[in-house]
């Protein structure tokens, strides 16, 4: 009897060892979230994208891979093949996979959408984020910034989908069926000449209230008027914006966000030279807007907003510095938590 048990145990051990070695031999390489075969980015940029995409996986269960390609052949077929080879979506519990392929040789970029995400990230959405968000950065040679800016839109869409329960819950299968979009990457081609409908120069600064300036800013964003020299900005803001890439998608996003923020309150400084338009603290996606008097008119101070207002991963705003700045007068009656998020008094 002991010999029989010994034999059975031995056979069991051999079977387990064979199965384990087979798994490790044939499971294929462990693909990273970001792979830069074309050497378009430096290590720090790769690390930033990896970190951001790890958050996306953690927060929204979306396995988003990025590959820069250094090979010939049809881009669309290659993207579909790579999606399968990399098992994009395998790190997600619900099979949600995305793959961004940048091909500098063909000057093309493709966002391949997995089956489980086709309902949320449509072909039209993929084309929109590529053409209206990513490509303007690529044109200035800012590859990593273009990828990260696009991921922001993907996060925003994922948040909307989670709120509206639009995510596919039945089709758990991985893989892709060729969904997504391909766009001309226009790598380092210089600034775009066609960024949507041409705006009219009707936005003037001679406005009497911060609310009017804010409305003109919203109108500029809604018409995709990204000119940095508009009179509604403070001189420092104009200088800052002249170095920025302002994409049509970013302007759409600002206009959309502003439309949903209506319940505002205006707070003025004691000398009436600065003002803040703020929204109730529980409206986490509505940041405060800062204004300063320039040549007798209220102008938008985006430089101070950029320094003081931060956004978390869930798109909720917080103050990076609570005291000792020009606009602290507007928040004296508010409470903030240790991270700078405003606390609503219920």
């Amino acid at each position, binding site marked *: 009897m002991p010999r029989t048990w010994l034999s059975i145990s031995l056979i069991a051990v051999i079977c387990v060892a064979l199965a384990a070695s087979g798994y490790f031999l044939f499971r294929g390489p462990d693909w990273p979230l970001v792979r830069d075969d074309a050497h378009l980015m430096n290590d720090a940029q790769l690390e930033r994208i990896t970190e951001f995409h790890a958050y996306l996986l953690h927060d929204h269960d979306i396995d988003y891979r990025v590959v820069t390609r250094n090979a010939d052949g049809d881009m*669309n077929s290659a993207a579909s093949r790579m999606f399968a080879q990399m098992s994009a979506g395998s790190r997600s519990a619900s099979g949600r996979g995305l793959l961004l392929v940048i091909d500098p040789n063909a000057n093309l970029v493709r966002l391949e959408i997995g089956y489980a995400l086709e309902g949320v990230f*449509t072909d*039209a959405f993929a*084309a929109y984020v590529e053409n209206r968000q990513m490509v303007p950065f690529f044109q200035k040679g800012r590859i990593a910034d273009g990828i990260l800016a696009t991921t922001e839109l993907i996060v925003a869409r994922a948040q909307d989908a989670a709120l509206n329960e639009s995510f596919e819950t039945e089709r758990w299968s991985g893989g892709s*069926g*060729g969904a*997504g*979009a391909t766009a001309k990457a226009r790598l380092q081609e210089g600034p775009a000449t066609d960024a949507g409908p041409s705006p009219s120069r009707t936005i003037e600064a001679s406005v009497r209230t911060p609310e009017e300036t804010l409305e003109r800013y919203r109108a500029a964003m809604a018409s995709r008027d990204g000119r940095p020299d508009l009179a509604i900005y403070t001189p420092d803001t104009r200088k800052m914006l002249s170095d920025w890439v302002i994409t049509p998608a970013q302007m759409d996003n600002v206009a959309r966000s502003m439309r949903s923020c209506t319940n505002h309150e205006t707070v003025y400084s004691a000398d009436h030279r600065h003002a803040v338009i703020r929204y109730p603290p529980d409206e986490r996606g509505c940041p405060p807007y800062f204004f300063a008097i320039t040549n007798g008119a209220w102008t938008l101070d985006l430089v101070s907003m950029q320094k003081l207002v931060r956004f978390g991963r869930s798109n909720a705003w917080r103050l990076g510095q609570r005291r000792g700045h020009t606009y602290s007068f507007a928040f004296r009656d508010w409470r903030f938590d240790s991270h700078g998020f405003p606390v609503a008094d219920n």
Partner: protein
Amino acid sequence: MVSNRERVGRMQSDGVISTRQAEMLLASLEPRAAAGREPLFLGLRAGQLLAFLIVAVAIAAIIGLYLLTAGGPAEIQDVAQTLNKAEGHGEMNRTTTSLLAIVLLASVPLLIFALLYNSLVGKEETVLKDWAQVESNFQRRADLIPALVQTVSRYLTHEAETFGDVAEKRSRMTQTLQEEIDGLIKAQRDASEILRGGQANPVEDQQRLDQLFAAQEALKSRIGNVVAVVEAYPDLRSSDQFLELQAQIEGTENRINVARQRFNSAVGRYNASLRMLPWNLVASLGNFKRKAYFRSRDDAENAPDMAFD
């Protein structure tokens, strides 16, 4: 979400298409009923019926042998009668062992047959599943046609109303568009008729699949021609609405390409199995037929370019 019927109705009332074109387009957009292999008895196909019979006979044989050898009341062997007697013990056990050995030997070929049969069924199902994906993408392409025609024609109408002084150009472009729309609807009807024609699944008819491929290529080319009309209108070309439509068209074309490649790979694996031993022996019993390839002359390179700068 606007249905195709509503969209076509609007296009007809707007004067974009005629009544005849509307009827033709609507008829071609109806989804095709799924075709499969004809069942023989109680929803079972010939091969499935055969496999079912083989398994039933095997189970009956095992039960019969059990009843013959081990059935009935349990008997206690008198060990004292057989102990230490040469050739005198285990007579009954030896009979049981022999019968079990015969059953096992007979079961092995049955088991192998079942495994081979199942593997062929699996491969055939993959072919049919991949073909369903191709058809679904054809339907997706067809569903985009009303949206495309409506977007382009509405813009032209709007432009004509806004810039009435370019009457000659308007008239020329409208006529070109009308001709292209007519060609597009006819191409859609031809592709739809081939897909629906015949009783058998098109994947078993190489000639029909070749015709279908040619018809779909013609349809793709017609879509490209309508899209090309937009080249003359930079405002429409750069509008978000048209970019969205263009993305859907390109996305559908890519889906069709991916689905076609997967279908052809599945057909390749299945057809190869039909010619290889021992699957070909099983295939002849199970009425498995060779499947047709969805052949392409040279898709990617010769495809009409629907991407814009």
